[in-house]
C-alpha cells in the first residue's frame, strides 16, 4: 500500500469544502447522464430507422426525425459533461490525470472521433434527400463513435480508482493502454450502454407523444417504451455481475454490510425492474418518474463506489486551501441560476412566438 501511496501525485488544495464539489459533481452528472442517455438512444434509433427504412417508409421517416434531433443532443451531452468533469478534477484530479495519461493516446483521439461523429450527425441531419445507403452506414458509424466515447470514459473512470494497475505505465509510456485488466470495466460499460438506452427510450416515447399526438405517435411510443423496458432488464445481468466482482470490502457495503447502502442498492435494483415493467406496459409517465428517482439513487451509489475504491488513499485527497473562495462559489451559483432563467426565457419566448 505504501508503494501505491507513493506513486499517487500530490493533490492541490480545494477552494471550498469537498462536500460542495461532491454536490455539484453529483448534480451535474445527473443532468449529463440524462442528456447522454437521450443522445445515445437517438443515435441508436436513427440507425435502426435508416436500416429498417429500406423497406418501410415509416421507419425511414422516424430515422430522419431522430437524425434531426441528434446534433442538439450531442451539443447538450458534451456541454453537460464539462461540468462534472471539471468538478471531478477538482476532487480527484491527481487520480484522474494519472489515469488519463495512461490511456493518453486513446483519450486524445476521442476528440478526433467525436468531431468526426458530430459532423457525421450534422451531415445526415442536413441532407434529407441524400443517398439512404450512405446515411445508413454513416448513422451506424456515428452510433459506434458515441459508444466508443462511452467506452473510453468508462476506462478512465475505472482506471482512476485502481492505482494498483497504474504500474503498466512503465511498459509503454505513450498512452496506448486501456483498463482491460480491470474486471469491473466491461460489466460497468455494458451496464451503462443498456442504462442509457433505458433512459433515452423513455425520452423518445415522450417526445413522439408530444410532437405527434396520442394517435399518430403510437408506434413510436411503443418503440421507445419497449427500448427502455428491454434495456432496463438487460442492465440487470451487468449490474449483478458488476456487484459480484467488486472487491469484497466494497461489495459487502452494498450487500448487507451497511444497512443504509444495502437499502440503496436494493432500491436501485428494484427501481430498474419497476421502470422496465412500467415501460413495457407503456405507462410512460410513471416509468419516467421512477426512472428519474432511480437515476438519483444510481448517481449517489456510483459516487459511493468511487469513494470506497479511493478511501484507502484518502491521505492523497485534497485538503481545503487557506484562501477559501466561498463568495466566488456564490457568484457561480447566482450565475448558474440567472443563466438557466435566461435559457428558459429564450426557449419560452421563442416557443410562444413560433406557436403564434
Amino acid at each position, binding site marked *: 500500500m505504501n508503494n501505491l501511496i*507513493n506513486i499517487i*501525485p*500530490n493533490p*492541490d488544495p480545494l*477552494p471550498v469544502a469537498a462536500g460542495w*464539489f461532491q454536490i*455539484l459533481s453529483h448534480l451535474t452528472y445527473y443532468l449529463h447522464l440524462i442528456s447522454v442517455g437521450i443522445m445515445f438512444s437517438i443515435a441508436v434509433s436513427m440507425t435502426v430507422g435508416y436500416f429498417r427504412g429500406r423497406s418501410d417508409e415509416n421507419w425511414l421517416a422516424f430515422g430522419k426525425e431522430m437524425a434531426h434531433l441528434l*446534433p*442538439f443532443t450531442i*451539443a*447538450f451531452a*458534451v*456541454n453537460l459533461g*464539462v*461540468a462534472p468533469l*471539471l*468538478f471531478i*478534477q*477538482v476532487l480527484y*484530479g*491527481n487520480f484522474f*490525470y*494519472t489515469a*488519463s*495519461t495512461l490511456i*493518453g493516446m486513446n*483519450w*486524445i483521439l*476521442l*476528440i478526433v472521433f467525436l*468531431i468526426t461523429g*458530430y*459532423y457525421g450527425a*450534422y451531415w445526415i441531419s442536413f441532407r434529407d434527400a441524400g443517398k439512404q445507403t450512405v446515411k445508413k452506414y454513416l448513422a451506424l458509424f456515428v452510433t459506434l463513435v458515441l459508444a466508443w466515447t462511452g467506452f473510453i470514459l468508462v476506462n478512465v473512470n475505472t482506471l482512476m480508482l485502481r492505482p494498483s494497475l*497504474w504500474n503498466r*505505465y*512503465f511498459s509503454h*509510456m*505513450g*498512452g496506448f493502454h486501456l483498463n482491460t485488466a480491470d474486471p469491473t470495466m466491461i460489466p460497468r460499460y455494458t451496464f451503462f450502454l443498456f442504462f442509457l438506452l433505458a433512459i433515452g427510450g423513455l425520452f423518445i416515447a415522450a417526445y413522439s407523444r408530444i410532437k405527434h399526438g396520442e394517435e399518430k405517435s403510437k408506434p413510436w411510443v411503443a418503440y421507445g417504451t419497449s427500448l427502455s423496458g428491454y434495456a432496463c432488464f438487460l442492465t440487470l445481468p451487468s449490474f449483478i455481475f458488476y456487484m459480484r466482482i467488486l472487491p469484497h470490502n466494497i461489495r459487502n457495503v452494498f450487500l448487507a454490510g451497511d444497512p443504509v447502502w444495502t437499502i440503496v442498492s436494493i432500491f436501485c435494483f428494484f427501481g430498474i425492474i419497476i421502470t422496465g415493467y412500467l415501460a413495457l406496459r407503456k405507462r410512460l409517465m410513471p416509468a419516467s418518474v421512477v426512472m428519474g428517482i432511480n437515476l438519483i439513487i444510481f448517481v449517489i451509489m456510483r459516487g459511493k463506489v468511487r469513494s470506497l475504491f479511493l478511501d484507502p488513499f484518502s491521505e492523497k485527497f*485534497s485538503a481545503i*486551501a*487557506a*484562501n477559501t*473562495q466561498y463568495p*466566488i*462559489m456564490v*457568484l*457561480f451559483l447566482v*450565475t*448558474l441560476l440567472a*443563466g*438557466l432563467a*435566461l*435559457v428558459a426565457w*429564450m*426557449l419560452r419566448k*421563442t416557443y410562444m*412566438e*413560433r406557436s403564434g
Partner: protein
Amino acid sequence: MNYPVWYLPVIGGPLIIAFVAIVHVVVSHFAVGGGLWLVLTEKKGYREKKDYIIDYVKKHSKFFLLLTMVFGALTGVGIWFTIALIHPDATSHLIHTFVFGWAIEWVLFVIEIVAAFLYFYNFGKISEKLHLLIGWIYFVAAWGSLLVINAILTFMLTPGKWLTTGNFWDGIFNPGYLSSTVFRTFLCFALAGSYGLLTATRKFKGDQKKELVNYNGKWIFWSLAGLIPSAVWYYLTLPELAVAGIRGGSKIMVTSLWHLAISFGILVLFSVYFYLWKTEKFGFKSAIAMFLTIFIFFGAFEFIREAGRKPYIIKDYMYSTGIRVADFDQIKDRSILMNSKWTMVREITPGNEIKAGGEIFRIQCYACHSLGIKNNIIGKMAGWDLNKIRRIIGSLKGITPFMPGFAGNDNERDALAKWFYQEVHGSLPPADRPAETALDGPALFDSFCSDCHENSPEDPLFLKTLTVTSLEDMTDILGRLNELNEDMPPFEGNEAEKRALAEYIIKSRSEK
C-alpha cells in the same frame, strides 16, 4: 515529476499543444467576433430592407453553427485534455485555483449553445426583434467566455499580486488582463470580417459584392486600428524577461515577432488598398490571402505569448517542467529522481546511468524538447563532446534565461549527459573520460567558453576582465568561475588547459 509523463518523444508535447491550441483559439475567437457580426449585419439587412443581406447572414449562421458548435466546442474540450496530458501539474493548479471561473464559463457556454441553436433554426420564424435579441445574447455570452478564459491565460504570464496574496480576484485581474482582453476582442472582430469577406466574394457580384466587401473591410480596418494601441498597451504589461525575448533574447520570439509585423503590414496594405481605394477589385483569392494572413498574425501572437512565459508555465510560480519555483532548490540539492514519483530509477549506480539519464530527460526536458519534430534537442548536440554536454546542462540558466536550471544533483547531470551523448552518437566515448583538448587558445575557447561567450570586445567575458592583466590573476579567475557567478559552471579542464586559456584571453583582448 508529480505525474506520469505522456511520452511521445518524436512528436513532443509542445507540438501537440500548439496544434490543438492554435486551431481552437482561431475558431473560438471567430465564435465571439462572428456573434457580433451576425447581429449587426442582420440589423443592417433589416434597416436597409435588403433581403440578400438577410439571406447572406442566414447562410453565414449555418457555417457559424457548424464551426463553433462542433469544432469550437470539441477542440475546447480537446485543449483541456491536451494540457492535462502534457502539463498535469499546471492544469491541476489552474483548475483548483479557478474552478469557479471555469464553472461560470460553463454556464456562459450553456447560454451560447442554446442561443446559437435558436438563432439559426428560427431565421424568419420569429420576430426580427426577438431574433436579434437572441443574437445579442449569444454574443454577450461568447464574449463573457473570452473574459473568463483570457483571465486564466494572462494569469499564467502575469500572475501579479496573486503570487503574494493567492487571492482569486488578484489572479483574474492580473496586470496583463485588460490589455490582452482588448487586444483579443479586436482580433475577434478582424476574424469575423475576414470570414465575411470570404463568403461575400464567393456569393456576390457587382454592386452587391462591392457593398459587402466594403462592409466587411470596415470590420478589418477598424479592428487593425484598434489592435495597434491595444498591442502597445499589452506590450507594456509584459514581464521583463518576455520583453528581453522580443528584443532579441529569444530566437522563437524574434522570429514570431517578424511574422507578426509582416502579416500586420500586409493586412494594413490590403485594407487600405481595397477598403479605401479599389473595393471593386477585391476577389475571392484576395479574401483567402487576407484570411490566411490573419491566421498567421494570430499564430505568431500566440507563439510570442507562449514563448514569453518561458521558463515558466505559470510565471514565477511553476516551471515548464512542473516543478514549483519554491521547491526547486530543495529538489536540486537532493535529487530529481528521488523526488519524482514516476521513474523506474531512484538512485544512480554505475550500471544504470544511461537508463537513469533517459528517465531524467523524460522528467526534466521533455516538457519543451523532443527527440524528433519540434525543438529537437539531439540535433543541437551534434558536434558536442561529453564535457560540453555536461557543462551546458549544469549552466542552463546562465546560457539562456528562458530555460529553468537543471534540478538534479551532479550524478544526475552526468547520467543525463551520458544519455544525450549516447542518443547522439550511438555509444559512449571510449573509457568515458574527459576528451583531451589541444593546448591551443581558439580551440580551448571554443570548447570551454563559446557555449555562452563570443570572442568579441563587447562580450562580458572581455568587459569584466579588462582590469585583469596578469596571467596568474586570469588563471585564478578561471579556477573560481562558479564562485564569481553562480550561473557559471566550474572550469573543467586541467591546469595546463586553464593556463593556456587564460593566456589566450589576455592576448586576444589586447589584440582587440
